């Protein structure tokens, strides 16, 4: 099963490099990948398509992990960075950074590190807010509605920001809010690689506390887990994942919801030792194929990626709500 999924991902990844908006033939594209085509073609494939394919693959994996963490923290299969307003919070922080030029770091507003940091802080803020709310309100439906509302508020704030600024900055920012991998370049992607390496290393140690949390917080503590520290670590990791995606591609909806769901279905367990890698794999497969679809459906125009992911994501939300079981099964 796992091997089949990896093969599928590799096929999609290759396809994503070879096929695109331009009129490059497959053989040309392949030659360009190896650097033996015309300089123009080489550039298209190596500087545009390759980073784009890689970005969609990495972001998918990040969304898969973030979704899996959120679903176990909230003890609900409907939790997802997009649904809970975390992506919107991240976008708002990015908006503040790009539109107003306000940054948290010592880098300029367009510096990738600065963007990551802003997106991270925005995601973290909403996530902490949502976790505090979920401590007060038990009903998951209420929490979801609150999440959607938080998303709207962040969206409204972002819109207000947009009306305030000059057209040039706006043009750059609209790129992000639409949600697309078309802006993924090496310059944006390269700084994320050390972060990603850190995330991957951390994913190895989150399976144990997440499994304990399946039984609830009291049980987890009774087994020797330091709840505060574990929760902080998990929230930070999930925020890093969301921040990466928002910075590179803008908000991408529902992948964080579908990937862990499919992971549990395919691995036939809720044990995170399997759910986490499967969720990464499924997230990558979903995002790479959604990105492919967004480019190919109305070629040469492109669809926003959330338009594609919502098509399979939203029905799953409805299905899970109708099924009415708040079980991670």
């Amino acid at each position: 099963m796992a091997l089949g999924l990896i093969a599928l991902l590799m096929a999609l990844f290759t396809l994503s490099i070879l096929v695109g908006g331009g009129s490059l033939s497959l053989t040309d594209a392949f030659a360009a990948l190896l650097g033996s085509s015309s300089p123009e073609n080489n550039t298209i494939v190596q500087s545009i398509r390759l980073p784009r394919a890689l970005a969609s693959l990495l972001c998918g994996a990040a969304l898969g992990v973030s979704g899996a963490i959120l679903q176990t923290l909230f003890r609900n299969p409907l939790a997802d960075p997009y649904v809970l307003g975390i992506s919107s919070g991240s976008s708002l922080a990015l908006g503040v950074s790009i539109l107003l030029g306000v940054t948290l770091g010592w880098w300029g507003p367009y510096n990738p590190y600065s963007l990551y940091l802003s997106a991270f802080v925005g995601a973290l803020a909403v996530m902490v807010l949502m976790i505090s709310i979920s401590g007060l309100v038990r009903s998951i439906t209420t929490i979801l509605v609150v999440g959607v509302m938080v998303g709207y508020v962040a969206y409204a704030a972002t819109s207000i920001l947009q009306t305030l600024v000059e057209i040039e900055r706006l043009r750059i920012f609209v790129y992000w809010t639409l949600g697309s991998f078309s802006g993924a370049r090496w310059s944006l992607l390269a700084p994320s690689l050390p972060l990603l390496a850190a995330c991957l290393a951390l994913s190895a140690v989150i399976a144990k506390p997440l499994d304990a949390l399946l039984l609830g917080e009291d049980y987890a503590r009774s087994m020797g887990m330091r709840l505060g520290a574990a929760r902080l670590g998990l929230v930070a990791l999930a925020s890093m994942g969301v921040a990466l995606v928002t910075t590179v591609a803008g908000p991408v909806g529902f992948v964080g919801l579908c990937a862990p769901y499919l992971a549990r279905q395919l691995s036939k367990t809720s044990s995170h030792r399997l759910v986490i890698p499967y969720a990464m794999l499924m997230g990558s497969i979903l995002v790479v194929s959604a990105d492919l679809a967004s480019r190919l459906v109305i070629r040469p125009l492109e669809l926003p990626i959330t338009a594609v992911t919502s098509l399979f994501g939203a029905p799953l939300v409805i299905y899970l709500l109708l099924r009415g079981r708040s079980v991670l099964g």
Partner: protein
Amino acid sequence: MIWTVRLAAGFKNLPVVREATLEVKAGEFVAVIGPNASGKTTLLKTLASLLKPLTGVVYLDSTPLSRMRRNEIAKSIGVVLTEQPAPGRLKVFELVALGRYPHTGPLGRLSERDREETMRVLSDVGVSHLAGRLFSELSDGQKQKVLIARALAQNPRVLMLDEPVTFLDPRARVEVLLTLRKICRERRVAVIASLHEIELALRLADRLIVVANGSVESYAPPEEFVEQGGPRALYGMSDGSCFNPDLMSIELRSLPSRGPVFVVAGGGTGAPLYRMLSRQEYQIITGVLHKGDIDYSVASALGATVIWEEPFTPIRPQTIEEALEKARTAFAAIYTSPPIGPTNSANQRLAGLLALRGIPLIVLGKGQVEGAWSRIRTLGEVSQALEELENAILERERVVEP
């Protein structure tokens, strides 16, 4: 082993229990009883270090829990909480292996020893055959056993359970409690369980911790609590229904609304009849019973008028007189055919005298009495016969009235 000094437990500086000074020894089975919302859960959670004590200290041997790291506490105390977890698609083995949490490394990988321990606790609790099943598909009783196994997998010296059998059917209830006792004895684990089933708690526990009105008292053995009249005070109900200390169970009373029935019983032959009559709201007069007889105990607990003798003494003529006097208001008499011996042979005569005085006498069983109105075999027939007699009386009154 685990002990407290002047412990106050509760939330946000609102103590639910105060001044709790307790000690539980290794291998002891402790039942925590008390009314709902009396603070049993709060006390248990504080003992398990899931809640911080408001004041006072919980010690494990000589170390205060507050000075121990979570991981160390987890190696000493395992818990089973009231709320059943819903861990999704987790198999029984995986769930029980989670109990190895404090013993595994940061990756949570199970060593050979961890696997062996997991299998061992599964078989100790008697659920090895469920290892490959999904937890969510088990029955409530099986789930509870699996959760006990999970707690044991931590290899604790104290096992704390909050209402482990409340939602189980009677058979599963006894099974789970006996499993706990077995674990307690074989592994020398101290078991502290809050129970609502006072009858079972009294029969099972080595020590009873009673939580009521903010105070915590400890009784070992639990019989001391019964001797001091504790259950009556704790579970006394407004209609007089009460705890029967001889049988260590609760008898339900009902307010008599139907005419008095005189019952001649003894040797345990009356107890089921008393319960039926009380339920059907008959006023009960019974005698002559010897103190210490189950019939005596049940009849008194039900609020019947009891004419009695001291144990192992023959029934005196004046007691028979008293019985006949009290029986005058009865519209029916029932003889339950008790075994007859030298101390109670007068009861057979009493039944005959009642019949002679015109009280319709129902003989239940094989007893030989002169002048019986009817002879029947089952309790159901007794209630039919009594209704017949009542109707006959009503009929007679209607005829007389005009």
